């Protein structure tokens, strides 16, 4: 157990990064209330604090195999707002999993906000899995807001799998993602979002397929409940012989509102781009089927949403 962490901290870390008692295998950097609560580096992963602005530089050794790095951020002080810059340098041919994520516990009346700016430089043939979970809790009237920005540059033959999810409790989020794929590079982005109450979420995403053989896939699944609002702008741009697919599915409930505005842009006759978008309520026959299997209507609804966002 890390002594710099209390039970609220460890609970947050478990929610956002599956860390038990604040521990995780591989390299670790825990940012707590704008300070560093823990840092562990390994032979494959080096982590250094930035000297010109808040944030860290993460270096994954070229050729590293199955390197793992946890870099969660937690905010437990009401009224704390911060912008943090993290840069990732993934060496040629490296294989790594990076678990990020941010949890806010706000029991006060002031806004707590974390704006994370993440930039990935992924060298030739490297394979990266990037997981980011956002979560908010606390009974105070203070807002829990997050505005993540992610930019990634993929060199030839590199691969980035990005899984982002907003579990619950974030009042307002504006997410910006831009991924540029070089020749033969591939990215698969999965975004999961659930909003309720008066929450507001906006996601702007652009995947640029910049080299021959580049491939991009965006899978966006969202559920909007009560009076929450969601807006999605996923855009796939093809500048070469490439393949891109955008798929946005949303479930709308209660008095929520969702806008899903996918775009595909071809700047080459060889670009093959597809988008699909659907918004709808939970299908009645799905609820009935699960009820015939013995679930109540509420249990059936919960099970359908859980599966949809899994």
């Amino acid at each position, binding site marked *: 157990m890390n002594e710099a962490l209390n039970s609220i901290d460890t609970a947050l870390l478990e929610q956002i990064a599956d860390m038990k008692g604040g521990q995780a295998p591989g390299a670790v950097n825990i940012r707590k209330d704008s300070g560093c609560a823990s840092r562990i580096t390994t032979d494959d992963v080096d982590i250094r604090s930035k000297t010109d602005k808040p944030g860290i530089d993460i270096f994954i050794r070229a050729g590293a195999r199955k390197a793992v790095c946890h870099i969660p951020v937690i905010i437990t002080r009401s009224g704390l707002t911060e912008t943090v810059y993290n840069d990732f340098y993934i060496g040629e041919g490296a294989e790594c999993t990076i678990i990020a994520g941010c949890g806010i516990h706000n029991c006060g009346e002031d806004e707590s906000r974390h704006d994370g700016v993440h930039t990935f430089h992924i060298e030739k043939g490297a394979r990266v899995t990037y997981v980011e979970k956002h979560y908010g809790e606390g009974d105070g009237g203070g807002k829990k807001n997050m505005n993540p920005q992610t930019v990634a540059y993929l060199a030839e033959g590199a691969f980035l799998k990005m899984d982002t999810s907003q579990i619950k409790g974030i009042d307002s989020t504006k997410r910006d993602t831009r991924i540029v794929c070089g020749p033969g590079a591939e990215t698969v982005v999965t975004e999961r979002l659930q909003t309720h109450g008066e929450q507001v979420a906006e996601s702007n995403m652009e995947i640029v397929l910049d080299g021959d053989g580049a491939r991009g896939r965006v899978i966006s699944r969202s559920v909007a409940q009560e009076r929450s609002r969601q807006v999605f702008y996923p855009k796939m741009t093809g500048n070469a012989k490439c393949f891109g697919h955008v798929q946005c599915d949303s479930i709308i409930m209660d008095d929520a509102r969702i806008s899903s505005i996918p775009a595909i842009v071809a700047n080459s006759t060889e670009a093959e781009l597809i988008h699909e978008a659907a918004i709808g309520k939970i299908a009645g026959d799905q609820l009935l089927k699960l009820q*015939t299997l013995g679930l109540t209507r509420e249990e059936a609804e919960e099970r359908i949403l859980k599966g949809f966002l899994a």
Partner: protein
Amino acid sequence: MLELRHLQYSVTENAETNDIIKDVSLTVPDGQLLVLTGPNGGGKTTLAKLIMGLLTPTAGQILWNGADVTALDLTQRARLGISYGFQQPPRFKGIKVGDLLSIASGKKLLRRTEACALLTQVGLCAADYIDRDVDTSLSGGEVKRIEIATILARESGLMILDEPEAGIDLWSFNKLTETFSALHAKRDATMIIISHQERIIALADEIAVVDHGVITRRGAAAEVYPAIVSGAYNTACPARQ
């Protein structure tokens, strides 16, 4: 035992009432396999949905094992051991075949070997399907067989299957009739199957012909089926008359 007493179901639209089920009384003893057959639009599916609780009767009573279940909802009837296989089963984004079988079995986590046994009974190889989403990537026949596997997983006392053969290829159909036959041989469950298929009808203890919202004929398969085939119970076209 299942008992239907003067069951009626009407729909009123634009001040016009349409009687879908007019007055059906029916008793199905424990362990019996009853096939409901008859012309399209005759009321077979409506009757099955009334028993499951997917529709509410306008009048009449439904008794299951002596208890009046007419006022019970879908979930309550399911928990009393009534199950229903949809003619056109829904698809789910994000729910895997294994998940659906677990939900159906009522177990939090169905063992892989148990799920495998269920899928084998409907002619599917578990390794190929258990981790797949029950979504549009599956063919109509595959979804239909998974639907039947969910009914088998429930191990319920009353199994209602609406045209289980629809969309299923000949090879899988052979497996399915074997499965129904083996189930029926155990006599653990009462089975009501809506079907027009001769080989399913051949498994039945009794056949009931549902036409224009009433049961026009009921009797042993050996007795009723030849009459249906010969045209004695076919609905005549008024123009031809």
